């Protein structure tokens, strides 16, 4: 007899996500349904505004991957009006962006994902001496003495005994799917706390160049953070030294804490290789090295059916490539609900036809999500770190090939292990090591330019809208921590006529499309056995391995700015 479980809200993510899953008599997931349950409607809000302000509005789509929408937006407007930015601005933007990737991945691993693998309560019974021995065998990280772990354990014991468990309340401690020895759990708890403290240091780089984090400032035409090594009111050596120190400390933390923990934890779960999913991967590329957006250190391309030998080229302007469907989403299209529309011709007419509130189950045979279903040439695609790592692996990028092979070797598994929940989690760590390296690369590029006497960070040529074409269109893209992100704009008479965004989590969290093809979460959950359907630990593992960001996902922008119709509750 099959049964249906509901996990709503999914916690340790950004935004509001609901999963419904149908299990067979052996508690194996047969079908899963992913539903985004919020919508903010920014498309109408952007209409008619100054395009130079768009970065600030779109940045508020997400405060977790803060910065990526702002960056994509300034690229988009600059593409439309034909503005060029100085090399220093490109480098600083890359540095802010890569800082975001590194910090975001670290926070994801420890604070949003680790508790799917780490049993906090089990850490209470760890032997501090043995914990210290294991920690020192894993890495040279200095905080690893028996005394350090003993003190932490005492604190933790008191905390648990207080009865006020806070964020650890009523969770799945003792669940059979937890496999780590008590000592490894204790190490992970120690690093959960250390990472919580350290993440706030990394983003100080945003404050130096963008004034604050979350939500640092951008501007079209470059950046506003003046550089002058001989001024006491611009970025000079004191601030650059701070940036340099943060970069060095970050690399150390990734190398000595994150990567060793990832390998140690994965070693106990390599028998749990569920969550493969679609086998289709998409990436737009990022970190341009010249004025050409395609000059990125990260390549663009699509992989279909796990075939790494064939990389398909991507064109965001091709009306037949990126398209959005709404057959199973709470929207209507004027051409009918089976239509697939490119962002340039997109529509957003919300129409809720789900059950009356409050409800127990959604009507998953029909429409069941506020997310649309983006498809590439009709295919559902997975985006994110695994897509990027596979693409670079396929293209033989040496650093990635070495690191991937190193991790696979350390775990004693073959490359097929990458196509799994654990593979997704490992790819994020591998990528984080790469981005920590990029931080220092971009810093050095900036220093070289300043040394050569180039202080320019802003180009004023097209600041004044009087100098813009009367009407123009453009798009900008990046790879956000969670995957491929693009914005499209249509400017008329110095104002935003239309604005459209297709974000990473809409790809990954999408519901089924007109052909009934599931989205990436839905496909990855299928065939997963659950120890205890009442305690959805396995569901959380796989969903978290994608690092969901639902506020992003549900901010679909409407290219044509259609009026929102009245929603009927049926």
């Amino acid at each position: 007899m099959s049964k249906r479980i509901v996990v709503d809200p999914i916690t340790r993510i950004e935004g509001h996500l609901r999963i419904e899953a149908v299990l067979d008599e052996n508690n194996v997931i047969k079908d899963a349904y992913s539903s985004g349950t919020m919508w903010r409607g920014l498309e109408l809000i952007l209409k008619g505004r100054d395009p130079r302000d768009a970065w600030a509005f779109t940045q508020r789509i997400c405060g977790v991957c803060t910065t990526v929408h702002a960056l994509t937006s300034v690229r988009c407007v600059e593409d439309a009006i034909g503005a060029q930015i100085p090399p220093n601005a490109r480098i600083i933007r890359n540095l802010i962006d890569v800082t975001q990737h590194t910090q975001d991945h670290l926070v994801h691993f420890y604070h949003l994902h680790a508790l799917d693998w780490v049993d906090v309560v089990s850490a209470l019974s760890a032997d501090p001496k043995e914990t210290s021995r294991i920690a020192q065998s894993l890495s040279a990280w200095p905080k690893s003495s028996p005394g350090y772990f003993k003190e932490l354990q005492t604190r933790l014991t008191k905390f648990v005994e207080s009865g006020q468990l806070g964020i650890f309340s009523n969770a799945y401690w003792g669940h059979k799917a937890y496999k780590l020895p008590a000592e490894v759990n204790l190490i992970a708890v120690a690093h959960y706390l250390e990472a919580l403290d350290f993440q706030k240091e990394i983003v100080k780089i945003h404050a130096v160049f963008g004034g604050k984090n979350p939500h640092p400032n951008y501007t079209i035409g470059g950046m506003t953070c003046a550089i002058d090594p001989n001024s006491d009111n611009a970025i000079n050596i004191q601030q650059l030294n701070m940036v340099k120190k943060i970069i060095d400390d970050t690399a150390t933390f990734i190398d000595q804490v994150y990567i060793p923990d990832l390998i140690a934890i994965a070693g106990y779960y390599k028998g749990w290789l569920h969550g493969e999913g679609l086998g289709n991967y998409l990436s737009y590329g990022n970190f341009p090295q010249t004025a050409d957006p395609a000059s990125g250190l990260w390549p663009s391309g699509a992989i279909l059916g796990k075939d790494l030998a064939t990389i398909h080229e991507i064109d965001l302007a091709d009306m037949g490539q990126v398209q959005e469907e709404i057959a199973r989403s709470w929207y209507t299209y004027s051409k009918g609900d089976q239509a697939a529309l490119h962002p340039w011709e997109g529509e957003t007419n919300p129409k809720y036809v789900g059950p009356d509130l409050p409800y127990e189950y959604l009507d998953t045979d029909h429409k069941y999500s506020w997310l649309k279903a983006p498809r590439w040439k009709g295919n559902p695609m997975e985006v994110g770190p695994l897509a990027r790592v596979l693409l670079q692996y396929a293209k033989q990028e040496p650093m990635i090939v070495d690191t991937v092979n190193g991790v696979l070797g350390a775990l004693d598994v073959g490359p097929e292990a990458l196509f799994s929940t654990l593979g997704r989690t490992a790819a994020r760590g591998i990528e984080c090591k790469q981005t920590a390296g990029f931080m220092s690369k971009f810093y050095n590029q900036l220093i070289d330019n300043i040394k050569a006497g180039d202080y320019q960070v802003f180009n004023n040529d097209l600041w004044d809208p009087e100098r813009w074409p009367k009407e123009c269109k453009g798009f900008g893209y990046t790879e956000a921590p969670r995957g491929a992100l693009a914005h499209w704009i249509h400017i008329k008479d110095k104002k935003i006529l239309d604005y459209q965004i297709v974000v990473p989590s809409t790809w990954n969290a999408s519901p089924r499309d007109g052909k009934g093809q599931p989205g990436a979460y839905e496909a990855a959950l299928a065939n997963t056995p659950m120890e205890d359907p009442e305690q959805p630990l396995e569901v959380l593992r796989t969903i978290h391995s994608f690092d969901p960001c639902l506020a992003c996902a549900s901010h679909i922008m409407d290219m044509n700015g259609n009026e929102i119709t009245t929603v009927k509750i049926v």
Partner: protein
Amino acid sequence: MKKIETFAGVFKARGVERRDFLKFCSLISVSLGLAPALVPRIVHAMEHKPRIPVLWLHGLECTCCTESFIRSSHPIAADMILNMISLDYDDTLNAAAGHQFEEIRKQIMEEYKGKYILAVEGNAPLKDNGVYCMVGGQSFTSMLKETAENAMAVISWGSCASFGCVQNAKPNPTGAVPIHKIIKNKPIVNVPGCPPIAEVMTGVITHLLTFGKLPELDRLNRPKAFYGTRIHDKCYRRPFFDAGMFVENFDDEGTRKGWCLYKMGCKGPTTYNSCSTIMWNEGTSFPIKSGHPCIGCSEPGFWDNGPFYTRLAEVPFVASDSGADKVGMYAVGAAAAGMAVHAVGTAIKKAKNDSDSNPTQEG
């Protein structure tokens, strides 16, 4: 949930010496800008109070408030959530999900009637029965009302919960409204900003824990300790404003010399926040220091207060160092009508102006 501990007990259990505990208490008082004489009261409070449960709800938002919160440097987030409060329910950090997670909320509402804090990030869409934000199969609006019922007080994090923020900008497609439009019978502290500064967020909570009452609020329910003055009043670029030395474009000499950003659209003269004093990310910088004009993100309706790079209405500049130049405006460009408040740029008059001269429009 039965055994209740005090801060001092937790500190002691952590092996923190009394000397260090006292040092910690005086640090808190410094960060709150309090007189040293108050330190003993903080110590007493920390020694005798159990950890207050906090239920942190997320409505329509972007989670930047949570992200800012965990950037706090004094106290650090780990100390805040593990030792000072009991953060029992928070979408972003809780280990439990689904119905196990919801059980926590119900249990706290029951066991700690009138003794828990409801913290809200984001806001509620009222249109169409609230279908634009649903949690656990119910509308966020109904969940908010239900959770507020037994709360001791409500903290509205960020501009979303306080004033409406971006989803409430024109034409507000989902009918999003700030929390005080829905919850009418509880004390509410508004902590605006997009997001608010980390130490302001942790400061609001520590104030409550330490003194046992909410901080004093202005007429927009903002704590006076953090929203008492305008950015402009304490901006380090103010001497350039007074001297009439302005950045004219982001690539000119004034940019590199750190001149005033007024002409680039700076909303510092109309924005109440602590950016120019506490600054961001442990005092690293703030928007104006990185050369970008303030966009006024802690003000009601700031998304609709005119384009960010359009200067506040024309000002007859008297290049003087007397500080007597008058800025007769408070809105942007053509949209100035109806909101004109006579702002005087001197520290003396400013004290009287305070927040009462602030537009009250929600937005």
